[in-house]
């Protein structure tokens, strides 16, 4: 009895701390979303770009790239989803570098708020907008002929995986944004390396058509694992001829990659935040 009575008292300051972290994170997330929606860039990013990608890829490449025995439009859609989730790097890096550039990070640091609030708030708000983007893309996908064949459970698993991947990439974006500290540079530094990474995967074409060395790279590319897992969960046809472990077990591989990326980049981003902010 005594132990039960004393422990809440001892825990109180700690849980108050957690409550503060949560509250500060939500305040920052609120201001990112609230302010972001007023910026035309964000609106284009959130509403125009996903529609454009789906329609463009479906109609321009959809008919041009024949993949044997596969409905290419269905094959393509998971690739486009994953590409767009990977682009989460951009809003995170631009957002944080902009805050740094404009002195807001300094201001936040002079307030008695949780130190993790600024980055966590960024990640939460960008994750929310990636969720909206994903929904818009899926609706567009359905309109152009994409279908889910595996039922609701795996479908929700697929959506969860896409968001988990976006979450992981947001930490990469946070690190880039804080390292660069200039929104213009961050905008390109955030994305430029992503294109080769995405194209060197199974997102748009089967790796079997690539030269052997490139093919191996593509098979072990995290993007490929996520895309393959997406196809599997959504029940979209894909012919996996590769023996590489991630291609044989795409869902566990995809989860592992997401966890690995987060575990590596989240602490790096937080460390960079502390260092960058005290320059």
């Amino acid at each position, binding site marked *: 009895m005594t132990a039960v009575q004393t422990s809440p008292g001892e825990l109180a300051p700690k849980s108050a701390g957690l409550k503060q972290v949560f*509250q500060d994170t939500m*305040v920052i997330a609120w*201001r990112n979303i609230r*302010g972001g929606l007023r910026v035309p860039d964000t609106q284009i990013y959130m509403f125009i770009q996903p529609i454009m990608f789906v329609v463009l890829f479906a109609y321009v490449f959809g008919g041009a790239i024949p993949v044997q025995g596969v409905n290419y439009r269905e094959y393509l859609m998971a690739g486009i989803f994953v590409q767009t989730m990977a682009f989460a790097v951009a809003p995170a890096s631009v957002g944080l570098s902009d805050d740094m550039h404009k002195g807001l990070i*300094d*201001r936040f*640091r002079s307030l008695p708020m949780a130190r993790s609030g600024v980055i966590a708030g960024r990640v939460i708000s960008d994750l929310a907008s990636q969720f909206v983007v994903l929904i818009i893309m899926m609706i567009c996908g359905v309109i152009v002929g994409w279908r889910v064949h595996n039922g609701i459970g795996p479908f929700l698993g697929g959506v969860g995986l896409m968001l988990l991947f976006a979450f992981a990439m947001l930490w990469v974006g946070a690190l880039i944004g804080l390292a660069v500290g200039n929104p213009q540079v961050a905008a390109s530094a955030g994305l430029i390396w992503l294109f080769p990474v995405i194209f060197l995967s199974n997102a748009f074409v089967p790796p079997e058509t690539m030269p052997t060395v490139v093919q191996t790279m593509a098979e072990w590319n995290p993007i490929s694992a996520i895309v393959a897992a997406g196809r599997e969960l959504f029940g979209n046809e894909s012919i996996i001829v590769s023996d590489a472990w991630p291609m044989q077990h795409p869902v566990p591989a995809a989860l592992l990659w997401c966890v690995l990326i987060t575990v590596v980049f989240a602490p790096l981003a937080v460390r960079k935040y502390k260092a960058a902010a005290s320059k």
Partner: protein
Amino acid sequence: MNAIIAEGLTKTFGSGEKAVKAVSGVDLSVDEGTVVGILGPNGAGKTTTVRMLTTLLPLDSGRATVAGHDVVREPQAVRASIGLSGQFAAVDENLTGRENLWMFGRLYQLSSKEAKKRADELLEQFSLTDAADRPSKTYSGGMRRRLDLAGSLVIHPRVLFLDEPTTGLDPASRLDLWDVIRERVSGGATILLTTQYLEEADVLADRIVVIDQGRIIAEGTADELKAKVGGERIEVVVHDPDMLHRATEILQRGSGGQCQVDEHTRRLTVPSTAGSKGLVQVIRDLDEQQVDIDDIALRRPTLDDVFLELTGHKAEEKETKDDQQSADSVATQGGAK
């Protein structure tokens, strides 16, 4: 009680040849409920000092306490007791003025309701009510500055740091801010403000600290500093060069001080202790003796005068001294290794 104590603060940016000694040994002690003005030219180290005292920048060496809390060991307690308005307005430009203040209130851990109430009060106090619901990106520079200042007053901070608070404000807003500052002080707050204007420090500050190149070069009340600089001067531009001699005699007689004569511009400068009365007397005497003048003024000491007097160099001559200083710091670093 001292609201701010700093001992031997130093900060060097960069290392090796590029090292800049931004602050090299600043000591401060500010009584609770008083205003201290930090005066200094560009690059003197004002902002760096403020950033160290507000927990934004780690100290290279030294020790500082703000509102009774050590800035290194208890930064969060310091943050809960201070308000900071940095040199450049830092507000979220996509949020409205009201939203910005609400956000700062929340991050000061006020409840949503309290934060809303404070936002309304501050918008009123800083004459931003009309613009309150526009994104702050549409504000003029001065309005943004006012919003930023309002943000530093969301709680009633025990210690307020204002880095060049009136730069960019129009005269009316400047006077308003001076009122706000006085009001806070009468409410018991301690204020550290930096400024480039001696006049501002003169009006607001109980004590003034003059720094240059990271060092305190003078300290005291406005009057004490002015006395060091030599107080007010009367400046006369004579119309006719032939009258220079006669005018000099009149000025010397009036003040008892040494009259400086610049024959080229026909400008005479003489120290004056009698204020505007002295000026009136000089005008009368000159008129009586039929000396035509183009211009006459009672000139108060400026920051430039303080510098000329205290350091023997003008603010603009900084460049050369800077080079020399960085050479020094390299030498010291090399020696230490």
